[in-house]
């Protein structure tokens, strides 16, 4: 977290480019029929974009271990909420109709 450990403007420009390319890709691929893979591809790109923002724009890559561990734990809990809720609903007969 010290002053010289933050990224440079050059890196920020690269991240911006990656985010713009990711957005255009999501938009373009949405019009191609990939069957069940459409949402999977869209969400994979979204996750990559979010990770880039978190690691570099939000400086987590340069932060201490306590912060990194706390953030990881938070996202792990979020995944518990989503996967456990969906695995419950998706195995119920009223959802299959």
């Amino acid at each position, binding site marked *: *977290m*010290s*002053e010289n450990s*933050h*990224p*440079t*403007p050059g890196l*920020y*420009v690269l*991240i*911006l480019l990656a*985010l*713009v390319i990711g*957005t255009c890709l*999501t*938009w373009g691929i*949405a*019009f*191609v*029929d*990939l069957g069940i893979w*459409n*949402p999977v591809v*869209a*969400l994979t*790109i*979204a996750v990559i*974009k*979010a990770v880039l*923002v*978190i690691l*570099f*724009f*939000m*400086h987590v890559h340069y*932060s*201490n271990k*306590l*912060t990194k561990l*706390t*953030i990881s734990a*938070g*996202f792990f*809990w*979020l995944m518990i*909420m*989503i996967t456990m*809720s*969906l695995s419950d*609903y*998706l195995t119920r007969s009223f*959802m299959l109709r």
Partner: protein
Amino acid sequence: MSTSQTTTTEHHPALAHQFDSMEQQQDASTFGMWVFLLTEIMMFGGLFTAYLIYRLKYYPAFVAGSTSISVGWGFANTLVLIGSSFTMAMAVWAAQKGYRKSQVWLLLATMVLGAAFLGVKAKEYYDKWDECHIPGHVIGKGFNTWGGCSVTNKSLGNIAEEIRDPKHHGNPNIPEGAAEQTARQTEIFFSFYFAMTGLHAFHMVIGLGLLTWLLLRARGGEFGPSYYTPVELGGLYWHFVDIVWIFLFPLLYLISRHQHGV
């Protein structure tokens, strides 16, 4: 971290007395901000989970609802928000370097882009109002069984008709009653659309308030290499709001777009 000495009399005016050093203070502040953001993530996460469950249950209605909102404006707004995240990151960099003028300009640019995002959002909301796609009957013109204002006027977003219209890549073999039922279920999609984008827009408004406050302090030349924590934390908040939108855009605007075209 190794050089955490307490100086007796003179220290940075922004150093609170419970901290040993500016570095320790910033670490604690950043950690606290992240804990707050994680509670925000759990709040939006609950909405995302509910959205996913209903999307799986009422998939055809979610496709019909999603294709009725403008993917072009959603795409443009995604770029605007990503741009604002970039200017925000640069503002933090300028604050850390102590470049006073660039700080002010970059914070202003972030605010302009944020306001542009809200402007586009207002235009999109107005379109939904115009097409009678506001769920329920309390606000707006009321949600009809065919999911639009008029049975005959297609320009006013008649969802039931579009579901059966081949010109809209619809299927004419779907019985009228079934199409109307699906159109009626798009109310669930629109409820999620307004709840999620509304909560997101509310966060944007708070973000603009924070940026105004940071702008005034940056103008006063308060931030430099040893103290820029407020800009750093304001940045964290702004980027978090950006991340929420990164997920909202594909989930709300891009459901099965290939069936319907642009």
